[in-house]
């Protein structure tokens, strides 16, 4: 296993970040910006390095080394390209290989050795390898830069801007995965270092909404999912209700946690006049797996498509090859999330889902079948959601056997346990169904409070399916970059009338009333943060 420790990480949902780091960086940035644009950007880059170093000062050197190496490689690739020396491709390949070796060592060395030992019966040891925070994100960001440079898309080589592009604290640790071409022009704009109160107001509100998702929803879902998955990891056999509770709670936890981080990153960045790309667009509203991947972790999907799927051949060499490419992309995408076979399985499942989805689309096209009506969409949405829930079980479980145990529980193969008050119905059901029913309560393994759990899950599902997402709430004020090719807008027209009304009701405007509302909400969240244990973001581990 690789070792991760985020105990000292400066979390967005920590007091030290909100009351010390952010105000100092914010006021420092605009104060310096009045005198020098480049110095203000340097301040932001140094602050970002400090943000990273707060976790572990030793790895600042690694991050800086990676930046210098990739900047230098990019510069050489650019020079070679302009002089048409012919060595450009080798430069690119060498630089990418170097990046992969770095990532491979820190993230996959132990995984590789473990598997090798298992297969060959050896007992090789390489000791503990500490996984540097955000290494997957900053490595991928820089690989994209190298490829863009090779493709002639990179026009600017300011080292300060480049350092800021990689280290920029809102995205450094858990994304979004950025493109050089979408960030550099923003850093170069003269008015970036001049305070824009509208951006500050929108950014602050988006940050508060993200914080609310994390503190009010994701953490309470985690309090339900964690004891269930932990109990299963130590050999417990979850029954029907407990398995579903665990799987659904984790499904909601991951979405609210990761999208909360992305919202907070978008909000923070906007306060510095820099727009980040949208990373989540209500993914659980998707009615197909293809659509799901256009809405979930959109910047990673974009990366995998542009730098893996398309270079592998994409759909250019026939359907069979396309499916192989899809599967390879998703398997590697799974492995990117973590060095473990459960992640590979998760990626493989999604690769399989995508293959089925594409085959179904082809069949529909061939047969001339239409898209169906509302009920058909509802069914497609439910099936997509179910498929995603099943895949998250592998993503969360510590091993295959744990995942299988939960999936078996979800189809009642481990039996059903109900509260004693249902005793009178048990005889009826056991006669009619070949299921073992016991009276040890709904959650005998984890002792999670079922009523509260159910209520929280229903609320979570309602928020997911019927409410607008954070970026929709502030969409009039363009909080994100909107030039993403795959952006699937969910506008007023595509919603049901009730959803449209809800969106209008929740829409953000810079009024005093809304300012007061968001201010009170912000304080309530701070009060919750004080009373709960500090909770890190799930995607920090990837």
């Amino acid at each position, binding site marked *: 296993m690789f070792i991760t420790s985020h105990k000292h990480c400066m979390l967005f949902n920590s007091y030290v970040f909100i009351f010390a780091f952010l105000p100092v960086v914010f006021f420092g940035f605009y104060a310096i910006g009045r005198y020098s644009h480049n110095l203000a950007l340097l301040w932001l880059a140094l602050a970002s390095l400090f943000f990273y170093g707060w976790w572990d000062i030793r790895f600042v050197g690694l991050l800086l080394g990676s930046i210098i190496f990739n900047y230098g490689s990019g510069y050489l690739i650019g020079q070679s390209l302009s002089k048409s020396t012919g060595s450009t491709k080798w430069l690119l390949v060498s630089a990418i290989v170097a990046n992969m070796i770095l990532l491979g060592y820190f993230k996959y060395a132990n995984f590789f050795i473990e598997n090798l030992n298992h297969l060959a019966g050896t007992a090789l040891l390489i000791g503990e390898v500490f996984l540097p925070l955000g290494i997957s994100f900053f490595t991928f960001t820089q690989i994209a830069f190298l490829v863009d440079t090779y493709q002639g898309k990179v026009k600017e080589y300011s080292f300060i801007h480049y350092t800021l592009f990689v280290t920029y604290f809102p995205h450094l640790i858990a994304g979004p995965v950025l493109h050089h071409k979408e960030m550099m022009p923003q850093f170069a704009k003269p008015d970036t270092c001049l305070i824009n109160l509208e951006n500050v107001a929108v950014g602050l509100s988006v940050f508060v909404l993200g914080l609310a998702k994390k503190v009010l929803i994701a953490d309470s879902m985690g309090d339900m999912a964690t004891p269930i998955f932990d109990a299963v990891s130590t050999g*417990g056999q979850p029954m029907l209700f407990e398995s579903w509770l665990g799987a659904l709670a984790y499904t909601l936890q991951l979405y609210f946690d990761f999208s909360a981080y992305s919202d907070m990153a978008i909000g923070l960045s906007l306060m510095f006049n820099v727009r980040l790309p949208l990373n989540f667009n209500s993914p659980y509203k998707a009615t197909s797996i293809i659509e799901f991947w256009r809405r979930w972790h959109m910047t990673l999907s974009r990366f995998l498509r542009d730098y893996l799927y398309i270079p592998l051949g994409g759909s250019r060499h026939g359907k069979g090859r396309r499916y192989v490419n899809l599967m390879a992309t998703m398997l590697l995408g799974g492995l990117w999330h973590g060095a473990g076979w459960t992640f590979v399985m998760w990626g493989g499942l999604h690769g399989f889902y995508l293959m089925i989805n594409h085959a179904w689309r082809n069949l529909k096209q061939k047969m001339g079948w239409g898209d169906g009506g509302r009920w058909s969409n509802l069914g497609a949405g439910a099936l997509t959601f179910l498929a995603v829930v099943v895949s998250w079980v592998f993503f969360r479980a510590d091993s295959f056997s744990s995942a299988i145990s939960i999936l078996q529980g979800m189809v009642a193969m481990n039996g059903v346990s109900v509260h004693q008050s249902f005793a009178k119905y048990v005889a009826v059901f056991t006669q009619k169904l070949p299921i073992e029913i016991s009276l040890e309560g709904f959650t005998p393994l984890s002792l999670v409070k079922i009523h509260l759990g159910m209520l929280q899950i229903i609320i979570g599902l309602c928020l997911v399916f019927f409410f607008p997402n954070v970026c929709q709430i502030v969409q009039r004020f363009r909080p994100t970059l909107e030039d993403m090719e795959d952006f699937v807008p969910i506008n007023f027209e595509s919603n049901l009338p009730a959803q449209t009304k809800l969106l209008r009701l929740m829409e953000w405007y810079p009024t*005093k*009333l809304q*300012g007061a509302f968001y*201010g*009170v909400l912000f*304080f309530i969240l701070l009060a*919750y943060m004080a009373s*709960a244990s500090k909770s890190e973001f799930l995607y920090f581990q990837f």
Partner: protein
Amino acid sequence: MKYIQAFFVSAILACVTYYSAVLILIDAPVPAEYWVGEMITIKKELVKKHAGKSKIIIAGGSSTLFGIDAEYASKSLDMPVLNFGLHAGLRLERILQIVSSVIEQGDVLVLALEPPYYDCNTQLNSGHVTNIIGWDHDAWKEMNYSEKLEFVSLVSPTLLGQMVVAEILKKLHPASLSDRLTSLDGSLVLSRFRARTLPSTFEYSAYNLNSHGDIQRTEGSRFKGQGYDMGSPSHVCDKTADMLISFVDRMKKKGVLVYFANIPYIASEVGLDTLRSGELNFRNEFSHIGCIIDNREDLIFDRKYFFNTDLHLNTEGRTLRTDAFIKAIRKNVLSGTCVNAH
């Protein structure tokens, strides 16, 4: 911009209002474990009944409450033994405060603490906060200003909501909170205890205790989960060690001998080597704190002897554990061979 002004002004106003409300409602009868408060009142009284006599008090969390048959031990040892097992949700300093308020010169105190008590995490958690607001008002009074400040900051908005509702109900409809309110009246609790009829099935209730403080009706085995790692605890946090050393010192000055005991463990596949190495390390660190009267190896029980959690023995398990306890008391306490190294 007006929006930003409104944002910060409202946040500050909310902050002032919030903490003022917390301070005003600090003893609101919120939903909490009132039975633990009642149990403390009762157990203090049970100890007082034996005032002036030399006695053994075994204190700790709920593993002691469920794991010791003090009535049986009293008969076997021919001296009063009292079960002062409370609740693992109480902080260690609180357990020590409560027990030291009733213990007398000539008594023997055995502390059987659950593994988390030896950890460094001694901060208040939400359960502690709820109990202190609901019934443990003495704990609030005994805090200094910085502790009070920390305590108030731990009141979550959900709890404040419960405090508001409880205070309104207390004023407008006290009958709806009669269970909570009566549990705060010590004399009423004692008279109810004297007139109690034991429940027919198990209940977490202060009225489900015998006159030695043992909980009743713990027949059967319902626990399905995993037990504590038998190698744990293997380390004593410095802060906890300091607290225990100072407590043992104070008790010594009072003429009370303090000993320590292990808790029961569920038999698992963990090898005895793991258990022994964890225990050895723990004993080495513990040698400057006090004397541990038993071995973990003697307190490993089959799963069938556990009642509803990995810390709670059932009636049969309790008898086995009490036999081991009696043996350890005879060998190490009554014989005077287990000398406090401190």
